[in-house]
């Protein structure tokens, strides 16, 4: 997803400088003329963004006949939960569980091993680690979907076709490049003196890893976890190709087949859209601040 150009370290000093600049900007922007053009487009685009979302939510509470007869932009006068019941009483809970297992099963080891690798790359030296880092960076420039056919072959050979493990293993690998990029930038920001004084006090490299690098990179870990977790939760290609049985479906795939099956019952399909997005939305509300600041720090510049 990301690229080598986004890899400028966002230094601790850089961040404070930026905050100061921001504070001063308040004064400047406040006194200079407002940016009418930008503002107009920003609000207009907000409308463009929100109208479909509004429509999804109100339509999911309509009965099917209401959907065909009523004005699409007006909420139903008699909202119904029937669509949600229909979805929940189907195999939806199973797909939900599958998505949960695939996402957590991939993201926890992915972030963990990416963190270890980042620590090694930043703290160690030598051409091997440099080479490994370059390979990870290369992974950012390549559309990894293009590797799906050999991945499919490997999964068959491992006897994992049509299992959740088939989704987990490639998801871990695909999450590594961006995670290493972001995490190593953060670990690099930790002042070297802190590591050295800890080592001087007799701490092992592992202890500096857990007691120094880990707590200091927590914001980056949260960002990377949410960002990659989102990608895996919403992933469609891997489940489409690497699984087959209905009981192995994850939510996006289930949504797609649900749409094929109930294509006429749009409100029910939209209710399933709402239900698949709800957990992500809750997570977003909790981790929003960290995600937004982490993303802008990681990509801007």
């Amino acid at each position, binding site marked *: 997803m990301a*690229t080598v*150009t*986004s*890899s*400028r*370290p966002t230094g601790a000093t850089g961040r404070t400088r*930026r905050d100061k600049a921001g504070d001063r*900007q*308040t004064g400047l*922007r406040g006194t200079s003329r407002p940016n009418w*053009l*930008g503002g107009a487009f*920003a609000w207009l*685009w*907000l409308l463009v*963004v*929100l109208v479909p979302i509004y*429509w999804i939510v109100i339509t999911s509470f309509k009965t099917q006949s209401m*959907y065909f007869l009523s*004005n*699409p*932009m007006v909420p139903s006068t008699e909202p119904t939960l029937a669509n949600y019941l229909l979805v929940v009483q189907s195999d939806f809970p199973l797909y939900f569980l599958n998505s949960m297992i695939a996402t957590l099963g991939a993201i926890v080891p*992915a972030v963990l091993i*990416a963190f*270890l*690798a980042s*620590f090694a790359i930043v703290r160690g030296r030598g051409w091997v680690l440099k080479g490994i880092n370059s390979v*990870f*960076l290369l*992974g950012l420039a*390549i*559309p990894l*979907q*293009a*590797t*799906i*056919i*050999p991945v499919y072959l*490997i999964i068959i050979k491992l006897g994992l076709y049509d299992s959740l493990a088939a989704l987990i293993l490639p998801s871990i*690998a*695909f999450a*590594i490049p961006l995670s290493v990029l972001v995490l*190593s930038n953060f670990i690099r920001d930790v002042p070297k003196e802190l590591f050295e004084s800890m080592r001087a006090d007799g701490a092992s490299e592992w202890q500096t890893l857990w007691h120094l690098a880990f707590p200091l990179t927590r914001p980056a870990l949260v960002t990377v976890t949410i960002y990659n977790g*989102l990608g895996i939760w919403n992933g*469609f*290609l891997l489940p489409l190709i690497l699984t087959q049985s209905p009981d192995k479906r994850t939510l*996006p795939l289930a*949504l*797609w087949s649900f*749409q094929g099956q109930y294509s006429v019952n*749009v409100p029910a399909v939209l209710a399933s859209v709402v239900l*698949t997005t709800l957990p*992500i939305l809750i997570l*977003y509300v909790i981790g929003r601040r960290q*995600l937004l600041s982490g993303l*802008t*720090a990681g*990509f*801007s*510049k």
Partner: protein
Amino acid sequence: MALPATLMFVGFGVIPLLGVLVLSFTRWDGIGQIYPAGFDSWGAVLTDPGLPHALWVTFLVMFLSWIAQTPLSILIGTFLAGRQRYREVLAVLYFIPLLLSATAIAITFKALLDPNFGLGAGMHLPFLAQDWLGRPNLAMGVIIFVVSWQFIPFHSLIYQGGVRQIPVTMYEAALIDGAGRFRQFFSITLPQLKYTIITSSTLMIVGSLTFFDLIFVLTAGGPGDATRVLALDMYKRGFQANLMGPASGIAVILVLVGLALALLLRRLGGSSTDSQMDGA
């Protein structure tokens, strides 16, 4: 300590990457034995008029989505870079499309744009009630719009971060020199955003190669082959026509296109990109 990540990435990243090249010289139906086939697949792929068409469609999606998203994202990002409280709220709401899966988005817009039961028919707006996904040009337009709908907010946030890093002293100096808002924008903001533009463009352009799920659910490459991008072409040849050899050939082309574009954009970034590369 780098071992587990390296092993995983080599196993499911590097080996498949080399594997796709190897498989492009074989014959395989996806289930049975794999047979060496020399240049058969490549011969079939390179002489198929479907390839230039898929390349053209991929390029079109890439170019149109870039041109649709970039100016708006810069404009909105510059606005969002101010510090008023409501702009934060705006940023929060902006993020919502990114939370939805491409499948969910495609399904939603498919229903919204349905000529008989969608928004246009329901609101009695004939303009909106066209057969959006049934005509080649309109279908392409819909894809570009949906992509913009999902990603303009994200890129606006990237530009917001970029604008906030521009030293305020530059604006103060410009103000003293009597430069107006437009002058400030074109003489300071835009040039200072150079690297942000390259980052955001790279994300857009390399990302556009991976619009598989959105197009698959929205149009399935149709009407006809009007929106059959490379990734979709690969999937259809491989997993629907069971021709894994030619599909691997397409995948190799996809990798080369991605790599070439990334390198080109890095070159555009100039010398400073090299130091960034070292820094990573």
